[in-house]
């Protein structure tokens, strides 16, 4: 946070101002904050929950909790880490409640923007390469779904949210060494799942 403030003081003070307005109960500031983080937060929750309906409910609960707890937020902490840790705790509570039930259904991993058929119909010379990318991504996404939730979490935080290891530790409430070991196991598990789908293939 201190580093962020030093590197981009205007953005830092803008974020702090938005947080202060949310604290005062300004509904427009809260709406702006939800809009700003909705894609990232929903994606994170979907990777964890796998089921869109569960991610949807967790998303709403997260913002209710943010509104309730924003008064206790320590401005010296990274807001994004705090926001994701709120979501993490709610997901853990939900998961504990469901533990023992059957596994959740697989998530539809399509992005809603492109489909394989649509890619080929465009006549774009790069369409085939993009189609292959799409399929590789879909296979990789399907393999991620097979991993345990703690491994899915570190993968999305590291590679999709681009969080530092220290930030991941803060979100998940675990030591740095555990983040590293989870990341390694998650990647190895992912590779094993990919190998199991395509035994002859090396890599993605």
């Amino acid at each position, binding site marked *: 946070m201190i580093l962020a403030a030093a590197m981009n003081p205007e953005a830092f003070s803008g974020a702090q101002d938005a947080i202060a307005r949310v604290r005062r109960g300004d509904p427009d500031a809260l709406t702006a904050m939800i809009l700003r983080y909705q894609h990232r937060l929903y994606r994170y929750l979907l990777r964890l929950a796998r089921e*869109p309906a569960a991610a949807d409910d967790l998303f709403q609960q997260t913002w209710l909790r943010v509104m309730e707890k924003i008064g206790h937020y320590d401005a010296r902490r990274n807001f994004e880490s705090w926001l994701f840790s709120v979501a993490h705790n709610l997901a853990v509570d939900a998961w504990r409640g469901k533990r023992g039930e059957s596994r959740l259904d697989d998530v539809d991993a399509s992005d809603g923007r492109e489909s394989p058929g649509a890619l080929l119909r465009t006549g774009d010379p790069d369409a085939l390469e993009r189609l292959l990318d799409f399929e590789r991504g879909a296979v*990789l996404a399907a393999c991620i779904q097979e991993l345990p939730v703690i491994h899915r979490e570190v993968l999305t935080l590291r590679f999709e949210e681009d969080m530092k290891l220290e930030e991941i530790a803060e979100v998940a409430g675990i030591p740095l060494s555990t983040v590293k070991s989870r990341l390694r196991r998650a990647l190895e598990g992912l590779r094993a799942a990919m190998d199991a789908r395509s035994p002859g293939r090396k890599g993605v």
Partner: protein
Amino acid sequence: MSEHEASRQAFHQAFHQAGADMLALAAAGALDAEEQRRLEEHARECPECRRELEIWSGYSQGLRRLPQPAIPAQLMERTRTRLVQERAAAADRRWDELMLGALALFAWTVGLTFWFVARIVTGGELVIMGANLVRFGTWSAGSTVLVWLTAAVAALALGKRRRELRRVL
């Protein structure tokens, strides 16, 4: 073989065995500077590890380009509605608590006033079933129970009416 060459080979052999765990972490950018330097030094000499690094690098790139989920329709609106409802419910809870406190204070003041009046009217003695009701202890115990019950019922009734009014408006 020179001593330097033997030492170099020993390093690579040892690193090749012990450093396998580091390859995946290197792709995740999770090694510290010294670990990264040693791994790169080893990979320059070891085609097997270099190939492994390339494979892990492919995973890293793939993970950064996963298909992105679409936000469900009206998620933003549903979230805002829920926030507004929760805010109203929290305001109602605060109002109920405030009213309960205010009504209890009012009822207790009334009870105390009546105690003074009852003492004057009865001359300090009103015995019913063996208990002197105008004794401070008996009066305050009785009136406290009565006060809180009355205040709670009144606060709940007022709160209910307030919520009904909000629904109509």
